[in-house]
């Protein structure tokens, strides 16, 4: 047979530009940075942030186009060009910028400084963005791997502390396990739906009437995919890695995991469950419900008895994952329908705000940690208010926001999720979530107690707050309060967020 001439797919470079931007930035940092001696004055961070900002602007422009032209797919249906993707991209970029600021404050001048970390952060961000906008499970898997591999390395990157390396190894082994499962899920789903492309899967299930539930492969696929994603979002019982890793990894990296990592994972989950598998919502929604409740309960309960702040926050992030799952569950009720309810939106808002919150929180943690040789026990925070009132105030804002106190972004996020759940009539999970939130509030109070109400122990030197970290905290506070007080813009924006499906 003769070889017919080859036609590559048409490529909308502009729509791809945000991803290209970040990857390009990473390459730039690697190539130039590796060949030149150590750059002064946090130029790495500067470049990274600049790149991120440009990418953000680009994705905003793309958003405009979508608003006019409607959602499409890119590069032969590999990526979805929809507002959902753009919003997730923006979320990731904002969180990345904050983390980079913190990272600079942490690394500048230390022997850990160098282009590599920033390059990895950028590539990881790219992976996250891809996960959020993937329209093909294989692509999603690749994005996931990009993100995960970078995180494995970053988690282990602090060679001064054994904990860092231990956490890196644990994360790596379990992560590998999880991605294998995820991959197996893809394979099974491929067996059931004869494609790995989300749009095609959706169409397939819309057109084929499954007779007598003989779609066993699909079910197994969904199950395994769900496990893989649940692992990434650290939902109970797949959360086991997160406390150890959060605690062991350098604080700024923990911030990245908690913000970008979670955002990407949830975006992927929404893509898979809500976009690709709306016709199996009755199959997966109960599982999500159970996961949500488990995460809420276990996360809050275990957070209460911790003594290490980073570990507390790790568990609290588990319970936050529970909250997000409540949103996913809500989104599941009317997935695929025209009036899909506010579940998806609530999750997105939550991701954005939680990303900022947690980044800010860990920014403060880094400062305290480096003042106590990496010790992040509660007593390390004792009397922080006396030493650094402003910093303490910032931390308090973040903690209150995480506790869901009004006029903060955290409250809005929780409100949105619960609203979605109640709108779908799942009151039980809503109430469980709120009660869990109260239990979790106890641990934020514990931190505040040691920050404000305990005297600063003798001979503790006042923390040095790097300018960049301070900036990060300030920005995070502004966003948290700002959105908390004037949330309308964010809500109206997210209301218009839609996914490319069907």
């Amino acid at each position, binding site marked *: 047979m003769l070889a017919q001439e080859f036609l590559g797919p048409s490529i909308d470079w502009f729509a791809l530009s945000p991803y290209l931007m970040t990857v390009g930035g990473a390459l730039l940092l690697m190539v130039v940075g590796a060949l030149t001696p150590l750059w002064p004055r946090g130029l790495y961070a500067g470049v990274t942030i600049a790149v991120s900002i440009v990418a953000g602007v680009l994705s905003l422009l793309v958003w405009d186009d979508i608003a006019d032209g409607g959602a499409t797919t890119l590069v032969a249906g590999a990526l979805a060009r929809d507002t959902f993707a753009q919003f997730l991209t923006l979320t990731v970029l904002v969180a990345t910028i904050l983390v980079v600021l913190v990272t600079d404050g942490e690394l500048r001048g230390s022997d850990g400084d160098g282009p590599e970390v920033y390059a990895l952060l950028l590539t990881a961000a790219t992976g996250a963005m891809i996960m959020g906008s993937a329209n093909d499970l294989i692509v999603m898997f690749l994005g996931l791997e990009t993100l995960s591999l970078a995180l494995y390395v970053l988690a282990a990157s602090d060679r001064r502390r054994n904990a860092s390396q231990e956490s890196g190894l644990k994360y790596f082994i379990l992560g590998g396990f999880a991605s294998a499962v995820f991959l197996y899920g893809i394979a099974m789903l491929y067996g059931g739906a004869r494609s790995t492309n989300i749009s095609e899967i959706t169409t397939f299930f819309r057109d084929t009437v499954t007779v007598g539930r003989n779609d066993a492969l699909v079910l197994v696929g*969904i199950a395994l995919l769900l*496990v893989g994603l649940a692992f990434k979002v650290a939902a109970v019982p797949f959360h*086991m*890695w997160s406390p150890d890793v959060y605690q062991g990894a350098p604080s700024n990296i923990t911030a990245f995991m908690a913000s970008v990592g979670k955002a990407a994972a949830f975006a992927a989950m929404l893509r898979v469950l809500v976009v690709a598998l709306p016709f199996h919502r009755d199959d997966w929604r109960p599982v999500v419900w159970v996961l949500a409740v488990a995460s809420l309960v276990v996360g809050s309960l275990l957070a209460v008895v911790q003594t290490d702040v980073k570990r507390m926050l790790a568990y609290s992030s588990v319970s936050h994952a529970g909250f997000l799952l409540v949103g996913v569950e809500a989104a599941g009720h009317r997935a695929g329908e025209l009036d899909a309810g506010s579940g998806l939106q609530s999750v997105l808002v939550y991701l954005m705000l939680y990303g900022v919150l947690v980044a800010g929180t860990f920014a403060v943690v880094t400062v305290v940690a480096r003042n106590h040789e990496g010790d992040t026990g509660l007593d390390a925070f004792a009397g922080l208010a006396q030493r650094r009132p402003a910093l303490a105030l910032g931390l308090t804002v973040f903690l209150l926001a995480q506790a869901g106190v009004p006029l903060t972004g955290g409250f809005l996020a929780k409100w949105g999720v619960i609203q979605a759940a109640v709108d779908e009539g799942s009151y039980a999970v809503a109430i469980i979530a709120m009660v869990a939130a109260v239990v979790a509030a106890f641990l934020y109070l514990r931190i505040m107690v040691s920050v404000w109400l305990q005297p600063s122990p003798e001979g503790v030197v006042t923390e040095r707050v790097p300018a960049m970290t301070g900036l990060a905290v300030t920005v995070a506070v502004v966003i948290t309060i700002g959105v908390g007080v004037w949330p309308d813009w964010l809500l109206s924006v997210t209301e218009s967020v839609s996914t490319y499906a069907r």
Partner: protein
Amino acid sequence: MLDLVWLIPALPLLGFALILVFGRRLGEPRAGFVAAAAVLGAFVVTVGVFLDLLATDEHHRSHVVTLFSWVPVSSLQIDMALLADPLSITMALFVTGIGFLIHLFAIGYMHGDPKFSKFFLYLNLFVFSMLMLVLGENLLVTFLGWEGVGACSYFLISFWHTRESAATAGKKAFVTNRIGDWGVMLAMFLGFQAVGSVSYGALNAAAEQGSIASSTATGIALLLFVGAVGKSAQLPLYLWLPDAMEGPTPVSALIHAATMVTAGVFLMTRMNPMLAAAADYAPQIIAWTGAITALFAATIAVAQNDIKKVLAYSTVSQLGYMFLAVGSGAYVAAVFHMVTHAFFKALMFLGSGSVIHGMHHEQDMRRMGALRLAMPVTAGTFIIGWLAIAGVPPFAGFWSKDEILLFTLASSPVLYAIGLVTAILTAYYMTRQVIMVFFGEARWESHAEEHGAHGEFTPHESPKIMLLPLVVLAALSIVGGAIQLPSFGIVPKAWRYKLEEWLHPVVAPGEAVIKDTAAYDAKSWLALLAIACALAGIAAAVMVYGRRRLPAVEPQLLADGWRYDAAVSSFMGGPGRRMFDAVAWFDARVVDGAVNGVATAVRGVSGRVRGIQTGNVRNYAGVVGAGIVLILVWFVILRGVL
């Protein structure tokens, strides 16, 4: 003049305000004079009002002065209004009159007390409250005064509050009174629900027209009686009165003899139509309570050694008499006895005060005797009071007591018998007191050394300002009976039943009619019998304490007031307190314990669950694997196969 009724309470209030502001600057004795002047002014106004009312004919002898709307909420409209009618003015007259005298007495009695001006502050406030009580046009205004006098008596009883006993007595008085107030409040509620108003006019009118269910009327009447029992120290709530003697003697005279304690009787009289509309057992309950109290208190008085305690118990007993009258429908008699009793009991209290004053605050009668030589005026006046209370004609007490007994017999002979016995006892223990204090040999010299503090010890007559009130009251005790003379042959027609005519518009609905009953016909004989009883009592006492012919019977049981007080307080201190402690324990351990228990439980569970997080990757992988299996089970088996 009638429209100036508001001046009657206003003046003491003014006095109160003045002393409150300038009290310290006024100091002694000016503060006392200001207070006395205020009360005197009130008295004068009252007299004026009294004359006006006298002038008007009987059907218009009731005048309401509304000051302002007090508690107006939709259907509930309560005014701050005063009512001037025969009853209230009668009360006001002796409240202000006797009040004034007692003020004068107090100026002398309280001489040298560091808190002189404060004493008159309270005294004026009390008079104000008492006047509000009697002049109130509706139950709520009365209640204002009702609680006001309670509060004032609390202040005054615990006036020397550094004395633990005084403080306790004050508290006891207030709390016990509150128990009664509970009844009054509920009575008001019931009345409001039934009639839509708490004004006497509306309530009594409804009662008279019978537009109020008899059950409701009974409820109101009995609840009010509960209040009366509290205020007027009847069984079972009389306990506070004897203890109240901890207060300065003028207080005892003013509050615990003349005015406040009679408030209960006043209230019942005021609401007599309601009582009339009530079921038959209501008045009987009242009568019996009164009778039993009278007898009970009299027996206790027999064995008291504290000069004031004797008077206190006799007060309780006499109040019992009044309720006996009320219960027998003898409202006029009740008021009559209230007035005469106010005269002679105030007199005797002041007398005892004078004695105590002269004896340098010695109150134990066993350390007195033969004081008639040391303080003749006091002795003389006191003896007049004694004859009055003992029921010896022609003194005031005889007439009122006789009238009550008459009505009682008309209603039930048993009660009459009790009344007579009480009369005998009264004569007996009063005589005993007089003898112990003023006659016999002087027993105080033997105790002189105890008083060595202020040089050699000799009782001395009190200053003029203290004696004047004694004299006036003595006079009243003699002629007081004239306001309500019975229809005996010796009495001129024109003088008869003055009080009854005067009060008629108020008490008409409830007043019992005893004409053409056997008792009425035999009233002269009854009078003679009463006199005989009185003389018998006196004679017995003389035999025992004067001549020493007979042994004194003063069993400890009576001295301890039948141990009733002890029983109550041991219950309060024992089971009662334990119950309260139990509640407190319950709150701390159970209710709050549950809360903390939850917290502990959460921590406990968390600690357990925490164990899963071993830190070993292989375990983690195991858990993840388990999760996978579970989810697969759901999808493959529950959703797939089934």
